[in-house]
């Protein structure tokens, strides 16, 4: 039987609050998911969608209310001790560690919970600190680190144990562009060097999911709305392609009217720059060459032509009927 890195079957989790503190919350509703070994799999959804709950179940921190979840083929309910030898997790905004220890000491301490030999752990920590540009911070006390440095340390903590499957919960939350880029690049490189490993990542950053993930599950209100590669997901909203074109002031606009499959045409004249900005939608990309020929035939020059690609946000809006915020 084929073994997935992660598999869930009708996974459901209901949080029942204490008396008088509100109604039960369905954090996960019958989630079915299959993640292949070697994948960088993304769970994309807004805050409160159920991403972290799912991750907590997979990391053996929470039990499902019903349904099944398997990590590396092992049941999260009764084989959790075996699962723990194969996983690690990193959360965004994590404050773990002890403020009075140095970065290196904190990383060493956490490595000891995985039974790694001290020397092996320390060598690995030093290599990873170098990769993340943190060597000069290895002797700094944890409490002196910036948010970005702290998160880089958290990421190192997760990877230093060399897990088969790593769960990253919003790993770049609140980080600047540079720190985020370093972490993203590291994740991609790690997976390239270790094709037998798996990364499960939750994020609400669309671009991050698009850039990193082999496949993405869009999750909202505890349910998986769609699960596919970013390209295929985007294709689902690529029924009509939107184009925008800047041309020298266009006199005859009929070229856009008579063509089959061209619609929603709008013109904005910029007399100061002697240009016209045209936006239109085509059902089929082959219409574009006819439009270009028509514009050139009447003596106008094309200054720019842009095809607006659908983003994952468009996919999400299509699925849910609203954006993240």
């Amino acid at each position, binding site marked *: 039987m084929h073994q997935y890195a992660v598999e869930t079957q009708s996974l459901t*989790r209901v*949080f*029942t609050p204490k008396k008088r503190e509100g109604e039960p919350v369905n954090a996960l509703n019958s989630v079915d998911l299959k993640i292949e070994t070697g994948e960088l799999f993304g769970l994309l959804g807004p805050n409160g969608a159920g991403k972290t709950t799912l991750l*907590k179940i997979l*990391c*053996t*921190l*929470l*039990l499902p209310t019903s349904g099944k979840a398997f990590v590396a083929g092992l049941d999260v309910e009764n084989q959790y*001790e075996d699962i*723990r*030898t194969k*996983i*690690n*997790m990193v*959360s965004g905004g*994590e*404050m*773990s*560690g*002890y403020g*009075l*220890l140095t970065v290196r*000491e904190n990383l*060493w*301490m*956490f*490595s*000891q*919970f*995985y*039974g*790694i*030999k*001290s020397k092996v752990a320390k060598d690995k920590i030093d290599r990873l600190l170098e990769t993340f540009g943190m060597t000069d911070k290895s002797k700094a006390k944890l409490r002196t680190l910036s948010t970005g440095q702290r998160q880089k340390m958290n990421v190192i*903590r997760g990877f230093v144990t060399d897990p088969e499957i790593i769960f990253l919960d919003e790993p770049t939350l609140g980080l600047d562009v540079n720190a985020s880029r370093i972490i993203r690049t590291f994740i991609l490189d790690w997976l390239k060097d270790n094709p037998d490993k798996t990364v499960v990542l939750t994020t609400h950053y669309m671009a991050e999911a698009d850039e990193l993930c082999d496949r993405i599950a869009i999750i909202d209100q505890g349910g998986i709305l769609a699960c596919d590669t970013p390209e295929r997901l985007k294709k689902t909203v690529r029924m009509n392609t939107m184009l925008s074109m800047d041309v020298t002031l266009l006199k005859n606009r009929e070229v856009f009217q008579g063509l089959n499959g061209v619609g929603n045409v709008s013109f904005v004249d910029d007399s100061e720059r002697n240009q016209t900005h045209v936006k239109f939608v085509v059902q089929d990309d082959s219409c574009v060459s006819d439009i270009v020929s028509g514009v050139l035939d009447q003596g106008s020059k094309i200054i720019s032509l842009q095809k607006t690609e659908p983003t994952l946000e468009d996919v999400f809006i299509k699925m849910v009927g609203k954006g993240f915020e």
Partner: protein
Amino acid sequence: MTDGWLVKNLRAIRGRAYPRVIGAGREPSWIFFEIVLPLFTVAAYAYIYKFMDARAELIGYVVLGGAMTAFWLNVLWNMASQFYWEKEIGNLQLYMIAPISRMSVLAGMALGGMFSTTLHAASTLLIGTLLFNITYQLVDPIMLILIFTTTLVALYGMGMMFASMYLLFGREAHHLSNLLTDPVYLVSGFYFPVNSLGTWAAAGASLIPVTLGLDAMRQLFFSDVSGDGFLPLNIELLILAGLSILFLVLAKYSLSYMEYLGKTTGRLTLRWQ
């Protein structure tokens, strides 16, 4: 060759003990707060005995009891309620997903705590002894070492059990530790011979390891000339050994149960309760 379960868990114990051993030394203010300041309470009780013209060994009992409070406070605040703080800063979930026995994390905390607290307690004892001119008549140092070690194992075993019972607590952890501080000072006879509580009360209090530990140490340090000892030393040692095993076993089972309960209710990682 991969390392066995025991070696991995020993590494985990060392890992968790490390911050406790190294951490206290990095913050020199502990010398003032954890050695000098507790001496004031010791001094107050010593002076009250002096004011009442009490027999000399009672002042010795106060100094010894005052030194031992460090262990009780350490067990309450740095063992029992520790997982609450760990949960708040996000360490608990990392301990929970690690492929080692949770008992190793607790054992690491206990060993680290024992080490640093023994230093504090020894300093309090030394200064208290010099301040109040206490004379000891130590008769059996080997027995003293045995009693002290067994007391610590039983006491920290109790701390490990509390820690697992507190696992799902929020602020209750703080309040429960706060609540337990003074009643235990009372029933364990930190500042007076425990047998003055009466036999039954003293017998009940003997479930708290420091009660018998302290009683035995007083008998050993002061030759029990006044007949303040509650039980014979050998019996006390035996009971302490039994308590050590009992608390460690209870700690293991309660930890497994509370972990299961936490995973079911989702409170294992719930913060700011």
